């Protein structure tokens, strides 16, 4: 089993908080980019030989910018070079402003069976300062439209921890998505990343980020409400109706192999990570000479740390056997385990370590306590 990720490095406009890789003026090389990504898919077919592809994920950037021809071209390249499972999850990230009946039909025809829609907020002023390209109305209508077009695996993104977002507003946002009756929700806490417009605004004191208390409260409320509405809180930022947990993203956390194509895309094969250059023109220029990526071999210690870090983020947790295969569980490990158990942060059940609700708020700290350095 393996996954394929395709990075579409184009966006209509730049969201204030975003540090993903994309460009907003791309028309002049758009064609070349899609063709090159197609070439990369073919070039790397040996990497996932003899495995079936269980998930395909079009991310970005903004893959909903792709037209019929481009999307089909990329999908065909994948099918021509890899063994894609007939029930594979094929996700496309879409922004509300790109969603129309026509587009939806085209995606459906192309084989897309899951949509991940960037709603982010139902508060007009927040959409505005975040420089999102869509309106509240579009956010509200696009999901209905998608459902009408026959999509039955829909995920929506929300952002919380915004500067002036009150608890009342947040509860309203949550209820709104519950009412939409989607199958999956990803909710991210706003983080101020370096080199973003948001970072600049914060430094200039034009925006004061929400306090940690507010962010924690919103997180707890989210988890509480969604669980009550029948969602599984299966990863720190992800909620799914039973049977609708994201296959592709889950595989990141489970250590399943994946191949990422396009600028800035990451790949992993169990012991090696590789990442493509995060620059569109360099990616294009250096593709021919095979100088468009870097890679890193993971040491046993790196593997251990990654398993701990990703595993703890999920409800299924970290399988002890997987750790033991790398290193024996030493005294430091057991001491950390005991102290977190005592504090009610961690559970140890069926040979799996997982975080309690309380522990989730400290996931990074707890993970790093189990790290090997």
């Amino acid at each position, binding site marked *: 089993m393996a996954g394929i990720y395709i990075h579409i490095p184009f966006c209509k406009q730049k969201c204030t908080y975003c540090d993903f890789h994309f460009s907003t003026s791309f028309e002049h090389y758009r064609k070349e980019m899609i063709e090159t990504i197609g070439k990369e898919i073919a070039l790397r077919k040996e990497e996932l030989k003899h495995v079936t592809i269980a998930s395909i994920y079009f991310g970005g950037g903004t893959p909903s910018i792709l037209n019929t021809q481009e999307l089909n071209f990329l999908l065909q390249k994948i099918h021509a070079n890899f063994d894609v499972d007939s029930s594979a999850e094929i996700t496309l990230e879409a922004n509300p402003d790109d969603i129309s009946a026509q587009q939806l039909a085209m995606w459906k025809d192309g084989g897309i069976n899951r949509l991940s829609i960037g709603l982010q907020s139902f508060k007009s002023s927040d959409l505005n300062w975040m420089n999102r390209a869509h309106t509240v109305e579009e956010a509200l209508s696009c999901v209905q439209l998608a459902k009408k077009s026959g999509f039955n695996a829909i995920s929506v993104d929300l952002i919380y921890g915004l500067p002036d977002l009150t608890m009342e507003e947040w509860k309203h946002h949550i209820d709104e998505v519950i009412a939409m009756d989607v199958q999956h929700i990803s909710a991210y806490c706003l983080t101020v990343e370096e080199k973003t417009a948001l970072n600049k605004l914060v430094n200039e004191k034009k925006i004061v980020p929400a306090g940690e208390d507010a962010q924690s409260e919103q997180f707890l409320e989210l988890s509480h409400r969604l669980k009550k509405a029948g969602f599984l809180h299966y990863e720190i930022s992800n909620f799914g109706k039973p049977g609708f947990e994201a296959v592709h993203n889950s595989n990141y956390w489970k250590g399943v192999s994946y191949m990422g194509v396009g600028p800035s895309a*990451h790949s992993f094969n169990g012991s090696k990570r590789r990442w493509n250059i995060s620059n569109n023109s360099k990616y294009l220029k250096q593709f021919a000479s095979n100088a468009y990526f870097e890679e890193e071999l993971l040491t046993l210690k790196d593997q251990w740390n990654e398993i701990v*870090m990703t595993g703890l983020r999920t409800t299924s947790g970290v399988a002890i056997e997987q750790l033991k295969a790398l290193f024996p569980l030493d005294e430091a490990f057991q001491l950390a385990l005991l102290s977190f158990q005592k504090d009610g942060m961690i559970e140890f059940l069926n040979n799996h370590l997982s975080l309690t609700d309380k522990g989730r708020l*400290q996931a990074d700290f707890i993970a790093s306590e189990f790290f090997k*350095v």
Partner: protein
Amino acid sequence: MKNIRNFCIIAHIDHGKSTLADRLLQTTGTISDRDMKAQALDDMDLERERGITIKSHAIQMNYTFEGEDYILNLIDTPGHVDFSYEVSRSIAACEGALLIVDASQGIEAQTISNLYLALEHDLEIIPILNKMDLPGAMPEEVSDQIIELIGCDMEDIIPASGKTGLGVDKILEAILTRIPAPKGDENGPLQAMIFDSVFNPFRGIIAYYRVKNGVIRKGDKVRFLNTGKDYNAEEVGILKMELNPKKEVRAGDVGYIISGIKTAKEVKVGDTLTLAANPCEIPIKGFEDVKPMVFAGIYPVETDDYEELRYSMEKLQLNDSSLVFEPESSAALGFGFRCGFLGMLHMEIIQERLEREFNMTVITTVPNVSYFCYLHKDKEKAFIVNNPSELPDPSGVERIEEPYIKAQVITKSEYIGQIMNLCIEKRGEIKNQVYLTQDRVELTFEMPLAEIVFDFYDRLKSVSRGYASFDYHPIGYKQSDLIKMDLLLNGEQLDALSALVHRSNAFDLGKKICSKLKELIPRQQFEIPIQAAIGAKIIARETIKALRKDVTAKCYGGDISRKRKLLEKQKEGKKRMRQVGRVEVPQEAFMAVLKLND
């Protein structure tokens, strides 16, 4: 002997001693143009990097003047007040001194203090107006200051520039004509004064001396009068850019001896060197031991490195005998050493040398001075306290005395007000105010030494916009109303942060330290109260709120390595912290008191 001249170069810090020495070395051909680099005598890495001289450096030059060959022994000295003992030692080996004054700055505090040291030894002073090439040079004004200070004539002052070489010939001529040749009896019993010693990992201790009488030869059986120990003179010679072995070194000259001595302790600077077979009767007047002025704990970051730290400190002491240390332990920091330093710069340098020469990362605690504590049961016997946490229970204490200094500040008259305020705030008392010229003033204060340990230099610099120079020397102990202030973290005492403070400052200081600690200690998974206490009484309190949330809820897609590395780095940083009870305390926190005004 009549063709030997021994002189040192003295000045305030940065007035250009070492640069002028470069020009002298170059003109006399002691150093070839090819080997020339700026401040060639500053050969320690740390000296080169910081651009300051830390250790005196002696070197011999040859010079022919009007057909006569001369031997010139030059000693370049440091200007910083922490190292003024180096100046005293160098002066004792000389008959003359070049007193350098930066023409753009004028006379400053160490110009005066070093001049006085030289005058005490009756040295011939050659005043030099340096940095004449600078556009800001004020030759008339600064000459007036010099004339006023030493009572010389205008013609005696030599305008010069270490940068352009201006005045170098004149300086050489003045050295030959104005500084007297050494006096002594070549045929008398050997009498030589040790004025410095350095450690060489291959050759052991190399002692530098000035021969007053007699001759020292290779192979002689020599005796150090003070220690009474005899050694074999394995090698003697003179000091060039490299050691230059000779068969003998004669009266009046400056030289070195290697005699199989392995540790710095065996050679006492100031001791008299003589021959075992024919010893001289009276030793030359030596030096007082250099006394440490400030004390601080030095602890290994990794507790396992204690033995290695000891080894490193011992090695460092071979090089720098002014460093003293003894083992101590702290509940917060484990095993380490209480070290005595000559001043704050010295402390900084020791810490840096430990890091770079021995690869030892250490935690340095807040420095303090040495107190005398008298107990009720014996009111006459002082109990020396070099570490505040060792202060006996206050109920048994009759009185505490602390060291005082006399401080000289030279500044522009417009800053007098602010500087006086600063000194008063630092419990100082103004003793004297003298106008050196119309707008240059020398202020004399008496104040507790402890006060200059805490942010005094920075404050002085900022209130005077850099136009103040500072010099001090100890003047003895005085009784003070001192109390011990403790700091508690999560209810546990942080012994390394205990301090003796003046009662009148305690509340204010307690509050500032608590809030500084709040800033420096990262939030942790639980709430941490910080308290300052005098005895059982809490005088200040802050709380570090618990870290509620330590998780990134961001989609980092396939980029898992980046996140992993970030967490690894954070964990790495934590490893360098110290555990006090449950609280992780970063190293900077142990020095918090020094940065209260940042």
